[in-house]
């Protein structure tokens, strides 16, 4: 006798899926389709008309040195900020997990940064890192001209990396801590009884067991560093000096909304999407091999 619940037809299943599909279509596929269409035309901003130009938008973007500079800046930003945010969060989470003095206090405190909106935290960091008024003014007093994000591109890049990493340390911390606490105490205690020290236990037991979390955070951090950096760049540097912090997502905004070049911006957002897709595939293909799922 057949005990499994089956549906008479596909209809009912599809009906259940329809609301979700409609939402996804309206808020993802439809605008994404529009972006593809816009990227193949030249749109008049006021909607007066458009001209089919095929791949011209892509050609002119890819032939533009400023755009390649923007890609490089985005990759540098993604690499360093992801590394920094994950490393710091990992260390903090490992220490919290060891129940050092005060760990309950900073378990709560470390989660806060992620709750702060990017523009607000960018504003705070703008003050902190201002070369003439903030904390860095003190450093500049000792070494004049050491810190100048207004003209030095590397300093400006460092500023936005610090601000972004600071925010994502909180996010990563939550996940790392949960991962550490999911490791059975008995394993660690057994290792301790066998005489292995803190570092040994970390490398041989904890680290391999949290690789799924590390991999998850790596994908999320890299993706977010391409997308969530907008608010920070807009408030702290506006893409300057001399395009040093003109990340891809910021360039899309400034070309599209400030420059009213909707077609060029649409083409750029398609390229950004493809880049993120490729990076994510790469991570799943090559890095996930080293992940041990339990």
């Amino acid at each position: 006798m057949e005990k499994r619940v089956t549906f008479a037809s596909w209809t009912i299943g599809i009906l259940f899926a329809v609301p979700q599909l409609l939402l996804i279509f309206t808020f993802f596929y439809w605008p994404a389709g529009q972006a593809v269409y816009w990227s193949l035309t030249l749109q008049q901003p006021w909607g007066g008309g458009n001209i089919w130009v095929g791949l011209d938008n892509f050609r002119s973007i890819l032939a533009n040195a400023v755009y390649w500079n923007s890609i490089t800046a985005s990759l540098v930003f993604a690499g360093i900020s992801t590394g920094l945010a994950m490393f710091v969060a990992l260390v903090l989470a490992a220490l919290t997990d060891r129940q050092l003095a005060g760990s309950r206090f900073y378990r709560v405190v470390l989660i806060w940064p992620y709750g702060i909106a990017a523009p607000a935290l960018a504003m705070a960091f703008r003050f902190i890192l201002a070369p003439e008024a903030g904390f860095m003014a003190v450093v500049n007093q000792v070494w004049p001209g050491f810190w100048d994000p207004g003209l030095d591109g590397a300093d400006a890049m460092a500023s936005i990396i610090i601000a972004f990493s600071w925010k994502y340390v909180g996010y990563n911390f939550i996940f790392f801590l949960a991962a550490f606490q999911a490791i059975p105490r008995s394993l660690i205690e057994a290792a301790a009884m066998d005489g292995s020290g803190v570092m040994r236990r970390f490398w041989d037991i904890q680290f391999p067991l949290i690789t799924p979390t590390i991999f998850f955070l790596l994908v999320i951090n890299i993706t977010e560093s391409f997308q969530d950096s907008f608010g920070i760049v807009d408030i702290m540097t506006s893409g300057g000096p001399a395009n040093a912090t003109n990340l891809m997502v910021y360039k899309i905004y400034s070309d599209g909304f400030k420059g009213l070049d909707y077609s060029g911006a649409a083409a750029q957002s398609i390229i950004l999407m493809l880049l993120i897709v490729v990076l994510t595939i790469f991570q799943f293909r090559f890095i996930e091999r080293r992940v041990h799922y339990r």
Partner: protein
Amino acid sequence: MTIIKRGLAALAAGALSTALAVPAFAEPVKFDFWFGLSGDLARVVDTMCKNFNESQKDYEVVCTSQGNYDATLQNTIAAFRASKQPAVVQVYDVGTATMMLSGAYKPADKLMEENGYKIDYADYFPGIARYYATSKGEMLSFPFNSSTALMYWNKDAFAKIGKTEAPKTWEDVGADLQAMKDAGYECPMAINISANESWQLMEQFSAIHNQPIATKNNGYDGLDARLEVNKTKFVQYVTDLKKWYDAGLIKIKSKDLGQDMVQAFASGTCQVIMTSVGDHGTVGKTQKEGMKWDVAELPAYAGTERKNSLVGGASLWVLSGKSDAEYKGAAAFLNFIHDPKTALFWSTNTGYIPVTKSGFDYMKSTGFYDKAPYKGREVAIASLTASEPTEITRGVRLGNFTQIRAEFGTQMQAIFANKVGVQEGLDTLVKNGDAILDRFQQTYPGETLP
């Protein structure tokens, strides 16, 4: 993809807010006015709207600040594409070319004529009117908030080097800055080199020296205009600024670094700045106790036959696709703003200058310019009317000029950071700026500026 989602959300929000702002049973006739000023200035606009609504019973204007000029234009475009546009919108000076080609407006002069208002267009200061008029002189929009750039100078610092007057030539400026440096001033002059300063550094300088920014009379005569600031007197100007910066006579001040130019001047840290007359009030209100300062016209190189400086600010456009009743209201509103009494109210409460001769005369007759906090603002009128506007001091009529200004900021930063030489940086500015113009021209094939 978030960008697109965000854009869509903004579009929906914009559409929603306009939908809410226009109730079904409206008596008097309501119409929308979107503007791009914020803070204190937005409050002054709100008061002006209230005054208009109380001055008559037939119309009611609903004034909504969109935060800043960029956002106003973006939101208006989004609203227009969704057929929810306001009747009147404030568009900044550099958006004029974009507006003219939009096909989304109702010419201001026609609107006034159809609704029986007589506006004496010759009453506008030519330097202001020509900036917004077509190449044939028709007014498609009404000049609203207007300013021009002035040099603010610290009288105390100049007294220390034995000067009682502001320098009139750039040669004198160089000597005076050096003298101030020698007298122990850390920051003789402050500038900033972001996109926004294109206005005082490139545009005003070029107008005063009668130097073109672009071919085709700065773009008035066609969309095929291209930049040429890399072969005018502007090159020498940037070279000098860079030289003075290297010698420590000029410091860069911006909000990102901790203190902007105006704050640096008002606090007495820096002795000379170039900024809008609109900051006159701010400096007065925030200045260091007892500091003596004044404003002067921007300097020119020795031997220059001085021309009018350029107007900055915004004009009011009436958008197409509204009902006749709303147009009647819009016309009444524009007529109200045009009134000299409104000009006095507007200029008193902001730093902006009157845009008509009758407004200026009316303000002079009330003794406005003799009183302490406002004294000095007449220099702006003198600067704007220094000469009859020439073919290239009418203004700048280039597509996507916002992006060209951004490119200006980028290249100036590269020059001041010693990444490129002056000529090389300006050549790149022209090259990249021309690509922007090229693109704008391609977007409007076969069209011409009115």
